[in-house]
């Protein structure tokens, strides 16, 4: 993997929005947008897997010059069948790592998550859907990997502070 690919979260999200891609920001970037003091080096999103959205997503990924970061030397590009599949697509783009997730937690896909998301202005007039902090916590508790367990206390405390009048 090239170590010089500069990460630019806003630029990444802007390209996705400019192509009209339906997606929800989850993971570390979602947590930060809710005010949690955590850090991450990739952008995790759950995308809608309907056919029209897959087409829009392919356009965005083309502009982002994306390829699978698991085999960077091959520069394999995702196709419609990959993006429609239930697997996760771990990509490198010209604005840094992008993880396209078909679902998170206990098989919660875009349709199931959308009603648990909030719209946020993240700069330069860009609005994105972000998974609610409550649901972000629930999803992490469902998967409960080591990384999630380390982050959960911060998310719980952020939610508690946020809920204070």
């Amino acid at each position, binding site marked *: 993997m090239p*170590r*010089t690919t*500069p*990460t*630019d*979260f*806003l630029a990444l999200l802007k390209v996705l929005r400019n192509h009209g891609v339906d997606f929800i920001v989850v*993971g*570390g*970037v979602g947590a*930060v*947008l*809710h*005010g*949690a*003091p*955590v*850090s*991450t*080096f*990739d952008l995790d999103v759950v995308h809608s897997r309907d056919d029209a959205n897959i087409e829009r997503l392919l356009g965005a990924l083309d502009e982002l010059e994306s390829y699978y970061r698991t085999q960077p030397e091959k520069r394999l590009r995702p196709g419609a069948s990959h993006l429609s599949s239930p697997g996760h697509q771990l990509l490198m783009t010209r604005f*840094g790592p992008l993880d396209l997730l078909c679902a998170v937690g206990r098989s919660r896909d875009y349709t199931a998550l959308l009603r648990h998301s909030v719209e*946020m*202005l*993240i*700069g330069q007039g860009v609005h994105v859907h*972000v998974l609610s902090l409550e649901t972000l916590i629930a999803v992490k508790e469902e998967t409960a990997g080591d*990384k999630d367990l380390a*982050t959960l*206390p*911060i998310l719980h*405390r*952020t939610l508690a*502070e*946020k809920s204070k009048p």
Partner: protein
Amino acid sequence: MPAQTWLCHNPTMELQPETAPGAPSISEDGVDLTLIRWMLSLSPAERLEVLQQFVTSVERIRAENDAD
């Protein structure tokens, strides 16, 4: 380095609001509440900028180390 870590670098700490006297700064489970309060005082766009600054700093350090 793990994909997700604690956000320990805080280049704009001077913007952090004063904590009310008596309010705990660290929770019982060791979470720095002052960082959370500071982040909550920012807009989502500003929070993303904080994260971006952190990542950019780390990337710059990595690049400098690679050049050595």
